[in-house]
């Protein structure tokens, strides 16, 4: 994605278009009405997010301790502080340095502002007029922290030179920005001379403000081209209060993965590339300044949402389509199987056409008749075993024989045949004991044939419940008896 990066100094605006970390176009605009008009023309082709990096003398820093608040109370407090410190400029910000660990645990804040809005406003008005999506207004000290990251010193002065603005001196205490100062380099003054001259001044300034505690050594990190750094090493005074750390811009670029070839000690590209790579969370622009960036973000969010929605729907539809193709193939396979089975069934059933009825009817009819035949008792089934028993007991004469299927009495679901025998015993004269014994044996014979035998009447009732009457002995008595037999029909 393309971005427009602007480097603003007091009398010059440098614009460069970057894409994937490389400069694709760049142009400079000196601070004059004609060049501002040219800048407006230049912007007509630009609809990218824009980042304005200001490197101005008129940037003020104030450290304040404020109560630790949240939400509206905090906003109101900060607004009061801005009104108090920077009433004349809309370009201000507040950065939390740390929260105190003792007492009320207040917040140590760094309030800063670009105090000369007239240097920014003409350019900003052009950007707003062209509806350029301005993401924010940043300053060089604000994005310098990564350049001192990892340095062991707690009191570090970073010195860099920007071609269009001058010598930037930024002081960090415990790696937190405390103060920054810009010194223009006048024509005729060499980079090395300017550094030597300003270094002594800033050291005294830090001492006077007590930003550098007494007895502490000030570590000075100097950014520059290797040639300039060699010369600088020779010019810088040896001091017990300061320790120098010379850093080649090429090494910094390599460490920060900046694709740029440095030909002099101008560190502007380090800061611009740094800004493009890692945006600070706070900046000097307010909501009005970033209005078109908000719109640009909204536009991109809508575009992304459209693409994401379409992509998701296409994926979903593709999944549906894939599932549908599988379903269709499976349906075709299932239908083919079904057809094959139906053909097989048809072949089997075609053999049934000449039969009388359906197989189920056949089974039902035959089963019903088989069961009915089980109920049926033929006369020979009934008579043969009884006749055989009578043959073995010739003194038994039968007068009455009846059998009937008993629906109330079944064995294994088959009705029992209830048989009644009535007869007489002959040849016993009045010897009841012999007659009863004979009848008993006849009963046992029937029992061994598989009958359940119940005696209904005996020739003489000798049971305790019966009554006996003496009868005159005139000839032979009729020794009548009756038996009930139960028999399960044999399975057919």
């Amino acid at each position, binding site marked *: 994605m393309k971005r427009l990066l602007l480097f603003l100094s007091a009398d010059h605006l440098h614009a460069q278009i970057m894409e994937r970390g490389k400069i694709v176009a760049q142009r400079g605009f000196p601070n004059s009405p004609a060049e501002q008009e040219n800048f407006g023309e230049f912007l007509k082709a630009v609809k990218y997010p824009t980042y304005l990096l200001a490197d101005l003398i008129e940037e003020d820093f104030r450290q304040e301790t404020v109560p630790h608040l949240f939400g509206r109370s905090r906003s109101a407090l900060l607004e009061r502080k801005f009104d108090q410190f920077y009433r004349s400029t809309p370009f201000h910000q507040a950065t939390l340095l740390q929260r105190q660990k003792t007492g009320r645990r207040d917040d140590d804040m760094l309030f800063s502002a670009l105090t000369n809005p007239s240097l920014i406003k003409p350019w900003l008005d052009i950007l707003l007029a062209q*509806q350029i999506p301005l993401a924010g207004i940043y300053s060089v000290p604000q994005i310098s922290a990564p350049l001192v990251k990892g340095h062991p010193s707690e009191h570090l002065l970073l010195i860099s030179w920007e071609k269009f603005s001058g010598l930037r001196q930024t002081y960090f205490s415990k790696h937190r920005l405390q103060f920054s100062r810009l010194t223009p380099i006048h024509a005729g003054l060499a980079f090395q001379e300017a550094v030597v001259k300003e270094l002594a001044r800033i050291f005294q300034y830090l001492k006077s403000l007590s930003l550098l505690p007494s007895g502490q050594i000030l570590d000075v990190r100097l950014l520059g081209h290797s040639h300039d750094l060699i010369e600088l090493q020779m010019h810088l005074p040896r001091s017990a209060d300061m320790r120098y750390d010379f850093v080649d811009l090429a090494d910094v670029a390599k460490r920060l993965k900046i694709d740029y070839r440095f030909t002099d000690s101008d560190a502007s590209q380090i800061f611009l590339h740094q800004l493009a790579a890692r945006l600070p969370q706070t900046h000097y622009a307010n909501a009005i300044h970033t*209005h078109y960036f908000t*719109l640009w973000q*909204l*536009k*991109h969010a*809508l*575009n992304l*949402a*459209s693409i994401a*929605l379409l992509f998701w*729907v*296409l994926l*979903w539809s593709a999944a*549906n*389509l894939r*599932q*549908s193709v599988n*379903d269709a193939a*499976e*349906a075709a396979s*299932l239908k083919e199987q*079904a*057809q094959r*089975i*139906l053909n097989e*069934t048809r072949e*089997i*059933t075609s053999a049934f056409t000449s*039969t009388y009825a*359906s*197989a*189920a*009817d*056949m*089974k*039902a*009819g*035959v089963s*019903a*008749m088989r*069961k*009915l*035949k089980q109920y049926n*008792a*033929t*006369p020979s089934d*009934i008579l043969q075993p009884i*006749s055989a028993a009578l043959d073995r007991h010739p003194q038994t004469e*039968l*007068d*009455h*024989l*009846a*059998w009937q*299927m*008993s629906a109330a009495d079944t064995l294994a*679901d*088959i*009705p029992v045949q209830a048989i009644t025998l009535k007869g007489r015993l002959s040849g016993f004269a009045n010897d009841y004991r012999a007659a009863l014994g004979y009848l008993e044996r006849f009963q046992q014979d029937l029992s061994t044939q598989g009958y359940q035998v119940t005696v209904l009447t005996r020739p003489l009732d000798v049971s305790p419940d019966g009554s006996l009457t003496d009868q005159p002995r005139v000839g032979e008595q009729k020794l009548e008896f009756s038996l009930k037999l139960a028999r399960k029909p044999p399975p057919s």
Partner: protein
Amino acid sequence: MKFSRADFFLIRWSAMAICASSLVSAVLLYGSGGYAERLLQERRNAQNMLNDARNRLAAANQDRKNMDIYAHEYGSLIENRVIGDDQRLDWMEGMEKIRKKNLVTGFSYTIAPQRIYTSPSPMDSGNFDIRYSEMKLRIDLLHEGQLPDFFNALRSEIKGWYQLEGCILQRAAAAVNNDDSTANATAHLKTECSGGWVTLKSRDALRMKNPVD
């Protein structure tokens, strides 16, 4: 932050894009969803069709097995006129044939109106109604050995199934009194047998006969 109409003008294409993509998405989702649902239903139908075909095949195989087991016996039932309407004329003619054979001293019979058979135990008769025409027999016998012969003749001479429920054999009064002069000429045993002719009537045939019912 407040948006004005002019702001909307700046994002109009993006707004239209999200509307268009929403519309296209809705159409695609509806279309693809409907298509997928239709094919899923088609697959379910095909699965049901396959299950149905498998059931039919299983039923056909079962029918074939049943036919192998029951067809011959079922054919015999048809042959013997057990399946179908009652054949009262056949029964009467058959009884007369038996009478001419003089297997017993004499007999008479009465056939009652046909009714549905009440089984003494639960019986699954499938698609058939079991019909029962009660026939009571009065048979005069010289001896009990004639009774099996009579019923054997009943089985062999008459097409149909006579279900014998029971009999009562009673010595005739003359025989009880040992009156040999009369016993030679008349029966020694009086027999009364109860039973009925069983026929199986297909309910389908009944429905075809009485479509209104």
